[in-house]
């Protein structure tokens, strides 16, 4: 069985600034990282590999330099890395992206049965959380989103039971394979690549699939296939904060006030 982890290279958003004139992201000199949620997706896939001996493939759609992200996945221990890269894929929204990823997974499944597809809950640059469900829809997979624990994986019965992290509660759900999971950070602690694995990953093959391989209708992918587009990016005006309470003279009162405010905002539960 093949487990597919979908990963994305994203700009380190803590370092991204918005150009006040053009209202676009200033990407120059900003380092790229593996989307943090996706690191948990890869880890989840590798744990299935460790336990059941499945093969793991990591796929990523992006420009040629996104190869670095796939090399990182190879260093973590994935068996196969595929970069989906073509000018025709560029400018895609979540719908067009999910079409390309779904086509790649379909192509993989022609050679080996894909039992589980795992995505991060969302990316830190787009924050839509739509690509995972989009892939599930395109491929007609069961979708289990916001997974924070894999409760059981039944290889024989071909089912998976997971816990979903919802606001204020958890939900335990079970689905038959094949299945798509989107995962949250609480799911696991990603492993750290050893040096031998890093060195091996530098020499390992990253396959590149372009649209000649995937043969998708160019009207359905990239900018052309995207019904949504970004018209403007801007930093929201933030109201100036105010200092409440008197932490210097009345620290206990200030602490009480803080707790009160946190309870009001549902940041604390009693």
């Amino acid at each position, binding site marked *: 069985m093949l487990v597919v982890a979908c990963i994305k290279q994203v700009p*380190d958003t*803590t*370092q991204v*600034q918005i150009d006040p004139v053009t209202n676009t992201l200033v990407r120059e000199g900003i*380092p790229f*990282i593996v989307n943090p949620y996706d690191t948990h997706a890869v880890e989840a896939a590798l744990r299935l590999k460790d336990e059941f001996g499945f093969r793991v493939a990591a796929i990523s759609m992006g420009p040629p330099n996104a190869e670095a992200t796939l090399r990182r996945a190879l260093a973590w221990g994935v068996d196969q890395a595929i970069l989906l890269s073509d000018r025709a894929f560029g400018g895609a929204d979540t719908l067009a992206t999910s079409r390309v990823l779904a086509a790649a997974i379909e192509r993989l499944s022609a050679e080996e049965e894909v039992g589980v597809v795992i995505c991060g809950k969302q990316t830190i640059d787009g924050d839509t959380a739509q690509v995972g469900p989009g892939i599930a829809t395109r491929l007609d997979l069961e979708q289990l989103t916001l997974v924070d624990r894999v409760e059981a994986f039944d290889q024989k019965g071909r089912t998976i039971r997971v816990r979903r992290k919802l606001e204020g509660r958890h939900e335990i759900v079970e689905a038959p394979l094949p299945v798509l999971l989107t995962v949250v950070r609480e799911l696991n*602690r*990603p*492993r*750290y*690549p*050893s*040096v*031998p*694995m*890093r*060195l*091996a990953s530098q*020499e390992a093959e990253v396959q590149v699939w372009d649209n000649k391989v995937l043969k998708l209708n160019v009207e359905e992918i990239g900018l052309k296939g995207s019904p949504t587009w970004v018209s403007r990016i801007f930093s929201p005006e933030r109201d100036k904060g105010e200092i409440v309470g008197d932490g210097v003279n009345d620290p206990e009162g200030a602490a009480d006030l803080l707790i009160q405010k946190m309870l009001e905002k549902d940041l604390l539960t009693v």
Partner: protein
Amino acid sequence: MTSHTTLFAPLLIASVAFFCFSLYRRLALVRLGQPEDRFDHPGRRLQEMLRYAFAQLRVVQRPFGLNHFVIFWSFMILALANAEFLVNGVIPQASLAALPEGVHHLLLLAFDFVSIFALVAVCFSLARRLFFKPDYLDSRYVKARSLEGFLILLFIALLMVAYFGMHGALLAMGEDPGAAPFMPVSRFTASLLAPFGNQLPGVAELFWWIHALVLCAFICLLPRSKHMHIITAIPNCYFGSLEQPNTQPRERFEKGETFGVGQVDGFTWKDLFDGFSCTECGRCQDACPANNTGKPLNPRQIVHAIKMNLMENADDLAAGKKPHLPLIGAEGEGTNTEDAIWSCTTCGACMEVCPVLIEQMPKIVKMRRHLVETEARFPEELLNLFENMEQRSNPWGIAPSERTKWHGPMDVQRFEAGQTEYLLYVGCAGSFDSRTKHVTVALATVLNAAGISWGILGKDEKCCGDSLRRLGNEYLFDKMAKENAALFTERGVKKVIVLCPHCLNTLKNDYRQYGLDLEVVHHSELIESLLEAGRIKLHDGAKELGKVAYHDPCYLGRHNKVYDAPRAVVAAATGKAPAEMERNRDNSFCCGAGGGRMWMEEHQGDRVNHHRVDETLKQSPDTVCVACPYCMTMFEDGLKDRGKPEVRVRDIAEIVAEGLRPKA
């Protein structure tokens, strides 16, 4: 006494053969280690050997070491007497008596005196072991070998007694009356033995045999016990590290290489030789902050475990098999627990006190390298640190664009080669840590007051990588060091001011391995020279700080030998020399944050900073002066924990900055 030749000769030959065999067996094990060049600079090495092995400089730093000094030198002088004894026992014609009479008598006088000194010293040692044994003499596995200690002391005592017995008996028989005036102690034993009358030849014979048998037993025991140090300690001092400080070597990151040491033959031959040079005196154990606070690390045990692991796995290694006893991770005498390996603060106290220059700390870092680089196994809190370092080049993962926020509205120039004299390398703590940012501002104020030309790299500054190197993540350190070396070269940086001793050590010493020869100065050194040159005019603002106690940071003091400058600065600013803690200067006690421990939880034992804070509070200071951001954190936390938040912690730059203004 020619009669014993026939019996003694085969006995001696057998003992010497056994000695050579045992010694060869052990030293052959050392050859399983990796190559390391410790044969360079013979002149300097000879000096080190004379200082530490022959003059016993480290040994005598503790009062009881004087006793060892006496035994050592008795041993050296009596080696001649014993050599004569052994040769003479086989070839009766060979004797020191063949020397000119004056020389011979002088030697006899020396032997007589030295023997009684040795006897007294050995009695002291026995008494110490029996009645006032210091805690650090024992460790988990050493108690079992206390018997060995007693046996050796007994052997030495017996040799001395036999020497006096034999010579006393001979003198009482009236042999060599010309020598009698030169043997006062033997003359005394002669008077005691005189009543034996015509049985004296038998008494002399008896003592001769005691001497002979003990000597042979000693020869046989030597290479099989911790007293092997008698043979190995002197060369160990010769082959000691000439690197000051003792930093970690680079690694090659190529396929097929091994990373760190996970199997005993991954250590260098010198690492293994250290094991056979250890006398188990326990001084490293006594100095170690981890050991002092109930952590599972004992530097002596690290050295001992490596030796035992080597001996236990000798057959496997010789046969090219995987060793059956793991070096890391098992329980027992010849293995190291991971907890022990992670407890080290790399403060260097163990190496500073070792009388025979054993290098404990580098061995620990080598094993950390194996765990991090090959096994990717480490305490979980380090994962964030490693990722933050790799992605954002600082321990907290703060955006590099925030590196300049420390100076607020202050006008700070960028470093420009040719226009700016010094680069102020702010460092991660100086840039991001809310408390240390005040130190950076204070330092900037002082530099401006002195009219120094300085600038910063701003957002382009990167972490130096100190914690990564000490934690064994050499792969990432290597990457960061290369980036920094390229950056410094590109910007034409030559002179650097740092406010963190860890940056100091890394930039100044570690980066030399990357071809970067910078003139790096810690702010305490620079401020001292500025004060000396009269470029800083101090008022008496710093006098309000009250009684100031100074804490030596390990990486400023022990590792880089800067002890006087910070003290001089405090004295100049406050008008009074700082109060000294019980353990100070090269004997200073770590705050607990070095070696990457800053980023780890302290789950076991007491907190190291609590011990240091308690020691500091004995001086009842109003202010603790530190010179390192890590020490700052550890002291502030420790003082809060101990209910003493009113005791201020100030960096040396802050004290000087206070001194710039008049008293309020």
